């Protein structure tokens, strides 16, 4: 593992994230009270990230791969400042734009235009900055006709396209993308990957999580492989993908993770 360099855009140092998972489906006061007599624990502590350290130099694209439950999304959210680390330190130099699995809109009763504005304002952009980007976003997402309709009328493809358009058009210094490239049809995928390539050529720093190993190979300068919250390996994308694919083929039992 390389040491944390001063000039890194993202520096993650020995980060642990613990979740307290509530086993109740819907935690309510009533349930808590009526369960008081039973000595069952309803909260389980779960280590989602376990001592992860890496850094991403300015202008580099870092891919993150790993099986389901490896902690990839947790890592993205922690780097974006949405989740607090339980231990360790994260330093991010630059304006971050996040495109996480759940998309941009948060209020489906509001129109696409309103959601874009609210998302931008919450992220700290000014109204003028958003207005400036707005035409570009709606054109990129190809949903001009729907921008003034409530987001509940959107198809899932339109939803993802808008989310992608917002994230890449906000002029981020650092772009964090989680599983987003699979959004939309073949035409939009092509457009999305062209846009990503353009951002890469502009020397933007990116952190990309994807199950599409081809995308990682194509876009990333470097990759890390997470497994059950631990960083297993870091290196060239080809090498990491090969190791990860081998691991997937033979399964966890047949291979000792410490070998890597």
């Amino acid at each position, binding site marked *: 593992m390389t040491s944390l360099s001063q000039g890194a855009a993202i520096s993650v140092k020995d980060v642990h994230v*613990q979740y307290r998972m509530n086993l109740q489906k819907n*935690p309510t006061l009533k349930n*808590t009270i009526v369960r008081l007599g039973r000595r069952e624990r309803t909260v389980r502590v779960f280590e989602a990230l376990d001592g992860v350290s890496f850094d991403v130099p300015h202008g580099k694209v870092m891919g993150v791969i790993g099986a389901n439950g490896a902690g990839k999304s947790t890592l993205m959210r922690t780097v974006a400042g*949405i989740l*607090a680390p*339980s231990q360790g330190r994260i*330093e991010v130099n630059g304006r971050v734009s996040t495109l996480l699995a759940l998309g941009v809109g*948060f*209020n489906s009763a509001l129109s696409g235009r309103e959601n874009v504005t609210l998302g931008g304002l919450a992220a*700290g952009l000014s109204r003028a900055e958003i207005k400036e980007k707005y035409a570009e976003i709606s054109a990129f997402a190809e949903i001009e006709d729907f921008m003034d309709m409530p987001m509940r009328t959107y198809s899932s493809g339109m939803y993802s396209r808008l989310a992608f358009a917002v994230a890449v058009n906000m002029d981020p210094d650092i772009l964090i993308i989680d599983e987003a490239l699979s959004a939309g049809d073949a035409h939009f995928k092509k457009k999305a990957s062209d846009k990503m390539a353009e951002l890469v050529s502009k020397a933007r720093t990116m952190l990309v999580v994807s199950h599409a190993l081809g995308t990682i190979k194509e876009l990333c300068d470097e990759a890390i492989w997470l497994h059950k919250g631990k960083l297993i390996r870091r290196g060239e994308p080809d090498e990491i993908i090969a190791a990860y694919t081998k691991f997937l083929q033979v399964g966890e039992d047949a291979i000792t993770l410490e070998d890597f």
Partner: protein
Amino acid sequence: MSQARSSTAEDEYNGERHVYEPHRAGLPPLVPYFRELWRRRTFAFELSRTSMHAANTDTVFGQAWLVINPLLLSGVYYILVDIIGGGASKADPGAFFALLTSGLFLYYYITGSMSAGTTAVTQGGRLILNTSFPKMLLTVSTVYTAFRRFLPTLIVYFGIHLITGQKVGFHLLWLIPILIMATMMGLGLANLFATLQVYFRDTASFLPYVIRIWLYLSPVLWTIEMAKERAGKGGQMYQLLLTWSPINPMYGILGAQGEVLVGGTSPSWDLLAYGFGWSALILVAGSLLMMSREREFAVRL
């Protein structure tokens, strides 16, 4: 778990450099937090504007409904308390109606901020999962919405004030600090209950009961003078009510407003002190609770 926070003045939200360190059970650095809250205030106003638009509150009839609804409510309570209940206002029914209406409007401003604020965080799901921002923006927005819904009722009240022949003068300026206290209390309660709602999803369903009981215990449907008079005649419940009133956070604010609007005087200092003390306490306690817990919201939504 909660280790020492960064001792440097590094900024968690602002600027182009972000440092994230553990403070799950502790508070985020306060100066950057409030600076960022202020910087992103447009979000709170925009959210309020769009949600009022989505609820059609910004149309003519939407505005009219904001006025008709509490007016009907005060009509109902007036019939209940003054006509059926044997009359709180033997001397001046007009003054009692003015007091009842103003009390109800202010009470529903505070509790309206609280109940709308309660679901502010749980409804902000996607935004909270995807963006790092001070979560208090969400409750500030609901309180701002509640204030905008309260304003038309204030205008209606002044109509009643004039019709029922209440005094007009500089003493009415006391309403400004009273409204500030009510807003502080509304935001404090919104922060408190929004945080509780994340942990206990049925908090919002308990609120209507809380709001109803709290209304009966506050000097809205009864006046402090009336309670004193009845307590003097041996009314034990009224004696109890008056003894415990100072621990009711609404007592000072509503009592002070009553003295200003219908009493036609400056509010007494003890009521102002109770009002300010409770508003400040609730605002600080609610906000500290929310700030200390908000980084956990993303996990719990």
